[in-house]
C-alpha cells in the first residue's frame, strides 16, 4: 500500500513541486498518474522511491513510514518496489539474463534461485528466447520488456512505471501496457505515470490527475482528463 497524506515538497531552489497531496493506493490496484510536464508526477515517484524526502506530510510505502525511515532501511524498502523507466536503463554490456542477474544479486540471491526465477520471468514478458541477447540487439519494445522483467524479477509488491511507453510506438506501447495489466492481474500493485491519453482511456483503470502540484482528480475506471 502507498499512502501520501498532506504532502508538500519544496526543492532547495525554492520551487514548490507538491502542495498538499493526499493519495492512497491499495494493494493490488492499477493506477494511472497523469498530468502535464512539471505538474509534480516525477516528484511523487521520487518521494515513493525515497530519492527525495517530503518537506511536509507523510509518505508510507509498503509498511515503511518514509518520514522516519533510517538510511540503512531504505534499500529494504526499495526491494518492495520494482521501477520501470522511460529510457529502459539497461546495462548495455550485459546480456538480458545478466541484466536480470544483476538486479537479483543486489538483494543477495544465489545462483540456484537466479536459474529458477529468470527463465520464468522472461517467459512471462515474452522474451523466453532472448536471454543471451544484448540490449542493442533488441527493439525498443523488447528492451522495455526486459526493463519490466528486471522490475519484476525480485517479486516486488509494487511496480512503479515512469512513462514506460514514452519511447515506444503505439503498437509497442499497447503491448507494454497489456503486459503491465497482466502482471497486475497476478497481484502486483501498479502505479503507471503516463502522458498517453489513448492508452489511459483504453484501459479504464483508476486515474489520478495532478496539476501544478495539486491532486485535481481521482476517478475509478476513468479516462485521461485534466
Amino acid at each position, binding site marked *: 500500500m502507498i499512502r501520501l497524506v498532506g504532502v508538500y515538497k519544496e526543492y532547495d531552489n525554492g520551487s514548490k513541486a507538491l502542495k498538499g497531496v493526499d493519495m492512497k493506493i491499495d494493494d493490488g490496484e492499477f493506477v494511472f498518474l497523469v498530468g502535464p510536464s512539471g505538474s509534480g508526477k516525477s516528484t511523487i515517484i521520487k518521494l515513493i*522511491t525515497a*530519492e527525495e524526502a517530503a518537506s511536509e506530510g507523510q509518505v508510507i510505502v509498503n509498511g515503511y513510514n518514509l518520514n522516519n525511515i533510517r*538510511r*540503512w532501511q531504505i*534499500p*529494504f524498502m*526499495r*526491494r518492495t*518496489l520494482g*521501477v520501470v523507466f522511460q529510457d529502459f*536503463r539497461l*546495462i548495455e554490456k550485459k546480456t538480458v539474463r545478466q541484466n536480470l542477474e*544483476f*538486479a537479483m*544479486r*543486489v*538483494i*543477495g*540471491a*544465489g545462483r540456484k*534461485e537466479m536459474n529458477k526465477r529468470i527463465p520464468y520471468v522472461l517467459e512471462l514478458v515474452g522474451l523466453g528466447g532472448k536471454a543471451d541477447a544484448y540490449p542493442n540487439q533488441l527493439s525498443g519494445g523488447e528492451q522495455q520488456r526486459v526493463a519490466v522483467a*528486471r522490475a519484476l524479477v*525480485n*517479486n516486488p509488491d509494487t511496480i512503479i512505471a515512469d512513462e514506460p511507453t514514452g519511447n515506444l510506438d503505439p503498437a509497442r506501447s499497447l503491448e507494454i501496457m497489456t503486459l503491465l495489466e497482466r502482471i497486475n492481474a497476478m497481484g502486483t500493485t501498479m502505479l503507471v505515470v503516463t502522458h498517453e491519453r489513448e492508452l489511459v482511456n483504453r484501459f479504464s483503470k483508476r486515474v489520478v490527475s495532478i496539476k501544478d502540484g495539486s491532486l485535481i482528480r481521482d476517478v475509478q475506471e476513468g479516462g485521461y482528463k485534466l
Partner: protein
Amino acid sequence: MKKRGFNLGYFITEGFQSIFSHGLMSFAAVCMIVACLIIMGSFSLLAVNADEMLTKEEEKNEFFAYIDESCGDEEIARLTEQVRALPNVASVAFTSKEDAHDAWVEDHPGGIELPVNVFRDRLSVHVVELELFTDTVNAVTALPGVADYSAHSELAQGFVLVRHAATILATVLVAILAAVSLFIISNTIRLAAFTRREEIGIMKICGATDSFVRWPFIFEGLILGLFGAVVAFLLQWGIYTLVMNALASSGVLTLFEMVPFAAIWLPVLGVFLLAGALIGTVGSGFAISRFLKV
C-alpha cells in the same frame, strides 16, 4: 528468498573487471603508487641505515677523563664510582698510565718511543645517548679530581643532527607522498564510479545497500594498492642491491656499511603491503561516498 551475506567472490571479480575496464587509468594509478612507495621506501631505508650507523657509533662512543696526578688509589676509586653514578653513563673503565703506555706500544709497533710519564691515569667513559654527550662531559669534568678530558663532542652532535634530519625528512616525505598517492587512487576510483554511475543508480533503485555498492570499489582500490606495493618492493630490492654493490666496490665509501636487504626484506614488504592496502582502500572509500547518495 534465501539471502546471502558478504559475497567475497563477486566483489573481487567486480573489482578486477573494473580495473581492466579502464586499464590506462589503473595502470597510471599503479605507476604512481609504485613511484610513491619507492621514494617513500628509499628515504625510509636511508633513515634505517643512518640510524644503524649512528647506533654503532653510539655503541663505541666514549671520552677520556684524565685524573689529576695528585689523586691516590682511594680517590681514583671514589671518582670512578662518582662518574658511574652520573646519568647517561653506560660504563666506566680505569686505565693506569702504565697500561696506557703498554697499549700505545702495542697499537704502534715500531713507532715513536714515548716515556710513561707522558701518559696519565684516565677513565674511559661510555655514554648511553649521544644527544646528552656534552652534558655528560660537563658533569664529569666538574667532578673534583678530573684534570682534563678528551672528547669528540662535535662529531657526536653531528651524528645526532644527521639522524634527526633523516628522520624528519623521511617522515615529511612519507606524509606528502601518502597524500599524493591517496589523491591519485581516489581519482582513479572516482573515474571508475563515474563511468558506472548508471549501474550504481540501477543497483540502488533495485535495493542495493551502500556496502554492496561500495565493496567492489574498495576491492578495486585494494587490488591496485597491493599490486603497486609488490611491484614497488621488487624494484626497491633491485635499487637497494645496486646501491649496496656500488658502495661496496667504492674505495672512498667503504666507511658506510649498509644493512643487508636479506635482513630487512620482511618488514619492508610488510610496510609496503600495508601502505598499498591503506592507500587503496582509504582512497577508494573517499571516492565512492558521493556516488552513494541516490
